[in-house]
């Protein structure tokens, strides 16, 4: 298979992840969409590593995996903390930091 197939697949998965990140309201599913985007970047990195026959890209993908694991741990910790404090697990409700004088964007 030509490398361009893998890179194109990675672009498709990244776009699906980015669209889903904007479309969903649950922080859990938004974290899953972040995983999709990180995995798409991993696929591109490994495809380019294969293209140049150079393992450096695979090491980079390994580091991305580590960062993704850290992101999952901290993100899920925040969600559990929200749940413990009886805050709604909904992105639209988490607007404490928003400028109160500004009108609601979504309505």
């Amino acid at each position, binding site marked *: 298979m030509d490398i361009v197939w893998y890179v194109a697949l990675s672009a498709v998965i990244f776009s699906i992840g980015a669209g889903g990140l904007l479309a969903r309201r649950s922080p859990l599913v938004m974290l899953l969409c972040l995983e999709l985007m990180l995995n798409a970047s991993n696929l591109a990195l490994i495809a380019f*590593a294969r293209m140049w026959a150079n393992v450096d890209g695979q090491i980079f993908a390994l580091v991305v995996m580590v960062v993704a694991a850290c992101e999952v741990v901290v993100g899920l910790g925040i969600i559990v903390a929200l749940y413990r404090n009886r805050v709604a697990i909904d992105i639209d409700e988490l607007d404490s930091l928003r400028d109160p004088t500004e009108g609601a964007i979504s309505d």
Partner: protein
Amino acid sequence: MVPILFFIAAFGAIGGAVGVVMLKNPFFSVLALVGHLFSLAVLFLLLYAEFLAAAQLIVYAGAVMVLYVFVVSYVGGADEPLDDGGGAPRALAPIFGGALLAVLAVAIGASGLKALDSEGAELPAGFGEPAQIGDLLLTRFLLPFEIASFLLTVAAVGAVILARRRRGLEPIADETPTDEGSS
């Protein structure tokens, strides 16, 4: 053989990604992501990244997904309506995704990398095997390796601090021991 495997894995990966975005129940979204990760591991194997495929299966499909399933069942993943308003920004999400895909497609097409239309350069012996990855991690990439381990430690400590019970925010009835010293 390779094209057949590629297309099976590619459809699995795209199907899993669409499932993550479209399924209402977060639990099923997590399961769709597991399928997506398995398909990606097959693709990694096709790209001669044996060590990364194994790490993907063990670290992602194993450990991280168990964490997700645990939190989904802890928080109680309720069905989430997909299209109950939310207004213009949320309705624009598919358009944004399509626009991003168009930009990426133009970037790939206009990159001018001639090697994109080939199977890749000639591979040296042992490409992507655990021995080579481990050798590089302990010699050339020692600093990133150590920084990654430090980052993991920081994340673990941060998660414990984030998720612990806080005192003083509101009284939690079942937390204070009541039967001690009463008798």
